[in-house]
């Protein structure tokens, strides 16, 4: 464990330097399984899936974005026991969530730790000049729950094909960005009959609601890709 840093009050970023093997090959959007060892009252190791948030070119490392689950076996270990310098075990990569090979315009929708695959994908796209028009909608309740705002805003300034739209559903006064549930923001901002592909990562409820909005916009199931928290 090379580095652990707090992104919000209940989300941490882990940066893991690979020891054996020393590199990993994966497609941005895939996930790994992280092992939480036996600890405290938990007699057995458990594995939990987390999307890789680092770009594949940084192949000597794996970054993860992990949100604390109240009473969660693995996230309690991450938040209360894991230290920089500890050795950890992970397996992978796994999963089919990834960008298609078309050049179609994209809409990304995420909340909370659903940021992870998109943080990998956008940095990969930048590095490899994959200039597909992309609007990334990221929802949160409070401003304190947002993270990577500066980094994503900087990318949006630098990359003409990338637009970042954070939105708050709570009542923070000091916020000049979009307001409302992220699905409502998408409904306002995405045009009807949009010729887009949509990529979603987050809770089943958010994804189901987002799919409904996208269907109403004329986006078919063959152009909607998602990674549900499950």
């Amino acid at each position, binding site marked *: 464990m090379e580095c652990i840093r707090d992104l919000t009050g209940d989300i941490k970023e882990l940066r893991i330097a690979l020891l054996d093997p020393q590199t990993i090959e994966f497609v941005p959007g895939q996930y790994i399984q992280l092992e939480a060892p036996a600890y*405290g009252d938990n007699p057995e190791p458990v594995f939990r899936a987390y999307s890789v948030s680092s770009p594949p070119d940084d192949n000597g490392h794996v970054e993860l974005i992990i*949100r604390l689950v109240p009473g969660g*076996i693995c996230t309690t270990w991450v938040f209360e026991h894991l230290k920089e310098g500890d050795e950890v075990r992970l397996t992978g990569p796994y999963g089919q969530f990834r960008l298609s090979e078309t050049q179609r315009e994209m809409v990304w929708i995420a909340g909370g730790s659903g940021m992870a695959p998109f943080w990998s994908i956008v940095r990969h796209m930048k590095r490899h000049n994959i200039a597909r028009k992309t609007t990334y909608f990221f929802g949160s309740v409070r401003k304190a729950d947002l993270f990577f705002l500066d980094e994503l805003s900087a990318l949006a300034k630098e990359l003409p094909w990338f637009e970042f739209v954070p939105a708050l559903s709570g009542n923070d006064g000091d916020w000049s960005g979009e307001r409302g549930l992220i699905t409502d923001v998408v409904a306002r901002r995405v045009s009807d009959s949009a010729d887009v592909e949509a990529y979603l990562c987050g809770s089943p409820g958010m994804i189901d609601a987002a799919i409904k909005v996208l269907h109403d916009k004329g986006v078919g199931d063959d152009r909607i890709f998602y990674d549900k*928290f499950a």
Partner: protein
Amino acid sequence: MKLSPQDRRIMERMAPGVLCRDGFLGGDDRPLGEILDADRAAVEAAGLTHEEIVRRLGEILRLAMARYGAPVEVGGGLTAVYVEAMGRIPCPWGGHGVFAKGEVRLADRLTGRQIVFTPLSVHLVDEHGFYQGKGSRYRLEPRLLAELLRRNDKK
């Protein structure tokens, strides 16, 4: 009271570290049957039924989940917030599928009293009449439930 083999298996799955960090029993060392019987009586004494509780908590759960973490007024001065979480958790009885992790925090703005429950909590009441052990994070104390749901009546 001697535990039946079935109850023993279920209580083993309810122990800390098996399905979740804290398990389902809190500090409650009563046998499962005793917990169920006592809560059935307490629910009746509070003037409620398992079915009514399931219906009301289910409605609050749906309202809260639709807001992805933003608080929602559910009537009677009660607010509910659904805090989502990755992953799913099975029922300790087994054989009922898996349930989304994440929890609803239902609070009375006037008194500050709060209960916390999950999609699995609703299933446990519905299928098993189980309100979790005393001291468990997701313990649904029947008297407190009755108090909050009566306030919820006043929409």
